[in-house]
């Protein structure tokens, strides 16, 4: 049993690399997600996952580093997003949607000029965690280290900004600079994760574990712990599940999407558990 779940699926080097990448992204997304969820930035994160797309597309066509292309497009959009959301006159939510689809369209137009349109697009949109190289893992690890250090340094300010934006401004903090910094950190995560799970599903790695943690956790520290555990656990279960399905039942399941699906299942279980706990407490309180 243990052999089938822990050892055997990870005999081959590509599965080992996938596991390392999944664990790294689980920790990385789990920690970052807590800040994102507390700031209610789900939509901004979603926008950033799509805006890196044209960068990847151009880099892909020019045979340049995907990493660099993604980061260039991501950083540009992070700046634009911060500026747009500072301007209260345009409805944030609509402005984000327009920006997101605009960047994404540019990506699609660029890719649609290429001859291998369909194959390229699917690779970019869905990601390939099983094709992760050692170089990719090192890039992810370094990016994660940088982001986590910055988050640790800004921790108390980011929490203050999330909890009481007016007080943060009154105390003289440059909240616009802090917003830009957080958006850039999210961009870095998207860039690191996009190759493994693809443009559309990156959002899940940030939001879903942290949302699960929000349902169960009582403090920021416990939220972070739960979020990381959910992220890592989903990565491992997802990989094993897609491996077993392929080996035992000849059923091919996309690994990245399976990981996300496991996260969603854990979230739903947490939601139901929370609901039951609340119901019982109400009944005890009322009785």
């Amino acid at each position, binding site marked *: 049993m243990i052999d089938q779940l822990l050892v055997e699926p990870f005999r081959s080097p590509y599965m080992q690399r996938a596991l390392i990448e999944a664990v790294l992204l689980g920790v990385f997304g789990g920690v970052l997600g807590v800040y994102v969820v507390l700031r209610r930035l789900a939509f901004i994160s979603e926008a950033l996952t799509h805006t890196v797309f044209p960068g990847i597309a151009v880099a892909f066509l020019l045979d340049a580093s995907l990493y660099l292309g993604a980061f260039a497009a991501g950083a540009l959009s992070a700046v634009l997003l911060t500026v747009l959301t500072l301007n209260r006159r345009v409805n944030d939510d609509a402005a984000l949607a327009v920006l997101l689809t605009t960047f994404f369209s540019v990506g699609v137009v660029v890719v649609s000029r290429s001859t291998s349109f369909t194959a390229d697009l699917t690779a970019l949109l869905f990601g390939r965690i099983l094709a992760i190289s050692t170089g990719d893992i090192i890039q992810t690890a370094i990016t994660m280290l940088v982001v986590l250090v910055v988050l640790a340094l800004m921790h108390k300010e980011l929490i203050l900004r999330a909890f009481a934006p007016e007080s943060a401004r009154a105390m003289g903090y440059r909240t616009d600079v802090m917003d830009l910094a957080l958006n850039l950190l999210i961009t870095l995560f998207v860039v690191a994760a996009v190759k493994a799970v693809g443009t559309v599903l990156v959002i899940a790695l940030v939001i879903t574990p942290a949302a699960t943690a929000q349902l169960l956790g009582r403090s920021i520290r416990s939220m972070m712990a739960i979020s990381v555990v959910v992220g890592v656990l989903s990565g491992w279960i997802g990989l094993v599940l897609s491996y077993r399905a392929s080996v035992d039942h000849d059923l091919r399941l996309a690994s990245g999407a399976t990981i996300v699906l496991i996260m969603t299942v854990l979230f739903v279980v947490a939601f139901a558990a929370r609901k039951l706990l*609340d119901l019982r407490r109400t009944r*005890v*309180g*009322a009785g």
Partner: protein
Amino acid sequence: MLVLDDVAVRFGGTDALDGIGATVSAGESVALIGPNGAGKSTLLRAILGLVPLARGSIEVLGRPPQEARRSVAYVPQAESLDPEFPVSVAQVVLMGRYRSIGWIRRPGRADRDAAAAALHRVGLSDRADDRFGTLSGGQRQRVLIARAVAQASRLLLLDEPFNGVDAVTQKLLLEVLGELRADGAAVVISTHDLTVAHLACSEACLLNRHQIAYGPVADTLSPPLLQQAYGARALVLAGDEAVVVTPS
């Protein structure tokens, strides 16, 4: 008009409101007074039939609250509305008539006239075509009162109507409310401003989760009772007359 009998509301096992009893007749005006979190908004929602009662009963215009809702005018706080929303001042006032116009049908001549008259009553006829959000805070509050007037309701519920309004607006609102009461309407105002309670209301309901006192304003808002409601934050100055409630 409005009868509250031993009303209690519970949220998740704790008491949000308890032991509220009051009878409001035509032409009367009641101030709901209490610190933040005392349950003033909850009580307004209970009168609208929007929260279930744990105990007691409420009768609005002789009917259960749910059935009476369309005949009650509720005035929210002006700050709760999106200033960028594309509606004109005239349109906002006309909204008071929607329930009597009914689904699908469009507002007619009579509705437009009623809305125009209501807007005139709060002195903002010249701003009818401006966007709601371009008005000042006090003017927005006046428009919302005009909407209640246009609704021609016999019971008005106002949520903190004097919060952050200028002196002109306050005077005008007091006049309009006085006229409505003279016409036979009953008014319930939630507020934490004791001066306003004295100026605008005949009765007061002092509450902090449970009802502390109910009766004529002068009797209810006495220093000992206020101290009971506000605790240490009510300072009694110079004998019995002046009471200062420090903000929470």
